[in-house]
């Protein structure tokens, strides 16, 4: 007698993503013909699937000959990681922050 169940699902025609990692941000930002995209001062050559996110206080980032990589540059940290690792950046962050404190 599941009729009494109150949960209903409404099928929504939305372009939706849960921004759980840098990969979703790269996807939401789109890309050029080779799947490269960037924000801020970045130069990407001979690469594909590269996402570079460069904050204003970070140095200029140049990427050559890489595939499926994310590069995140802030004033004090530069993260370069394979897109495969995007979902475990939180673990990497803990290691880095521990290193930093030493």
């Amino acid at each position, binding site marked *: *007698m*599941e009729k*009494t*169940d*109150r*949960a*209903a*699902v*409404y*099928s*929504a*025609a*939305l*372009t*939706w*993503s*849960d*921004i*759980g*990692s*840098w990969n*979703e*941000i790269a*996807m*939401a*930002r*789109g*890309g*050029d*013909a080779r799947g490269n995209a960037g924000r801020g001062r970045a130069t990407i050559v001979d690469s594909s699937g590269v996402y570079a*996110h460069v*904050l204003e206080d970070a140095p200029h980032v140049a990427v050559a000959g890489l595939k499926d990589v994310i590069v*995140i540059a*802030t004033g*004090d*940290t530069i*993260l370069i990681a394979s897109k495969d690792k*995007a*979902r*475990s*950046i*939180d673990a*990497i*962050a*803990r290691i*880095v922050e521990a290193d930093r404190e030493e």
Partner: protein
Amino acid sequence: MRANHWFEEWMVERALPLWSTRGIDRAGAFHEKLDFSGAPHASAIRRVRVQFRQIYVYSAASLLGLCKGGDALAFRAFERVRELAWSPDGRPGWVHLLTPEGAVHDAKRDAYDQAFSLLGLAWLHRAHPDPSVKRAIDETVAFVDENFAARSGGWWETVDQDARTARGETQLRRQNPHMHALEAMLTLYESTGDRSFLDRAREIYHLFAARFYDWPSNVIIEYFDADWRPASRARQRIEPGHMAEWVFLIREYERLTGENVDAIADPLYAKTIELGLDPSGRFLIDELMLDGSPSKRTRRLWPQTEYLKATLSQYRAKGDEALRQKGDKILTDLIEEYLSGEDLVPGGWIDAFDLEGGRVAKDMPASTLYHLFPAFVMARDLLARRSRRRCAARAATLASESGAQPQPAAQAPEGPHITPIILAGGRGSRLWPLSKPETPKQFLELISDRSMFQETLARVSDPETFKAPVVVCQADQAATACAQAAAIGVDLAGVIVEPEARNSAPAIIAAAIDAHRRDKDAILLATPADHAIRETALFSQLFANAVSAALDGAIVTFGITPTRPETGYGYIRAGAPLGVAGAFEVAEFVEKPDLAAARAFLATGAYLWNSGLLLFRAEDFLEEVRRWDAAMLDTLEEAVEAGKRKEGRTAGDRSDAAPPTLKLAEKPFARSPSVSVAMRSWRRRTAPPSTPRR
């Protein structure tokens, strides 16, 4: 009468009935064209692609409840066409042309024809799921894979072209069949849930982005040599109608894959208008030379429908009101010019004019209905002024027609009626090094120049639907949340502070308790603040139907059609339809599955991504929570009761004063379990049948 209403009446009451009666021969196949009085050109040679275009139109019209028996009619045409046009010479593939009597007129196997067969079959598979239809899809796909797939990417124009090229024969390759192949693959994916079609669509999209779309000039290149080098300038033409068609198609690709296509769609759309309009500025012309001079001095009807589709898909993606108004204008012009004429049979059209406005068309080709029908569906869905009453009434009508239990369609109140609850207390650190505990991802400008929290506020800011929002977050995030809301001019109704990080359920329940104390009839929309949704302006329209389900007592979740076997999301399995359009029972909530399970979910087509949005009446929701876990409800009631309240600015106060704040009491809050709402509901369903029910 507004243009979209006129168009709806024209399509449903005139055009579909015309082509389903006078447009069909005795054996069940479609006529190639009618004259302006509606009489068939019975002797015209028939293009197989046109048969499938009509099969698409009547399958889709039947699915949308616009043409009773349309699916049976489409299936009968399919059976006739299969008998005549599939492999009549013992070789596989759909032939090109038939005589009116049914003999093969041209047995050429053409890529464009195969693409349209797949479009028609995909829709027929949905409307009339006979095993023979699925078999035809499988056979056609196998035939295309074996004979058309080119080593250089994409499809050949005809079979055996690899061998022909090896013999030194040259034949220009066109982007056009690929446009329709992409359309077919996206439709097949939506019809079958089979992800391999989405992979094929992605390959075609990449070919488009790398070859067909010319990045420097923003136009579509039409003709190529065997290795995808553009043909000589003298042979090139620009077709504004195709450019518009691609805008629409890549937006559909974006909708189904989540890949942002702005970088191409926006400049391509702008270029279509810049190059394509006739001197009156109202209509797209058929064809231009590269220097911009017309190479054909005509403007057909179909480029105008594509112009409308492109404009409305840009509107759907960008939410810019000016685009909606533009769509309305294009439709008005189209109706006045092409669908009106004293000598026209009702439901008829004038297919072409010259650039001076003289009528060129001598008859009505059936092929154009395929362009008009989807333009009509988009106009109906996107140009309509929101009318909740009408939606509710239509849902009730649909329910009674489909034989489902007629449900009293609850009426949404006029004026703002939904209070958004923004769940902004997350502390995720996967977006390190940008995200930090005090500035987690939802407060960062990652996707646009606004934070995801601000984008979330913007989605629920439509004053016709939403009241002022309440934010739930941690103590050290409250100042950021208030400042970011103020920066985009949003007045918060209040802030609820969680004493420690928890999953979504305690936050939603606490907010519901607080809202219910103020207003026994409160309707809440709980929304995460770290999701990206492209359709900002259309977001509130979602709730026209959904709110009537909530008013009927449902706790409404929102499911998204998955586009990949994602293991990071929760899923919802949809059950039986609920009689309110678009709403289904929840058969099951599934937390993040492993890859094998996610692949299986994708293959069945019955599973949706759980977007985390929840719409409900606070009273109904709290009643459900009591049934799930009365102790948790008591605990959170205590946390609200004993919470510390700080008065804030009142409504309309223009000062920078903080909104009213409720800090939940620490001790009871700490006892609440860290769970998500979906998980609780799912657990309850697996409880023994003796669980007392209301």
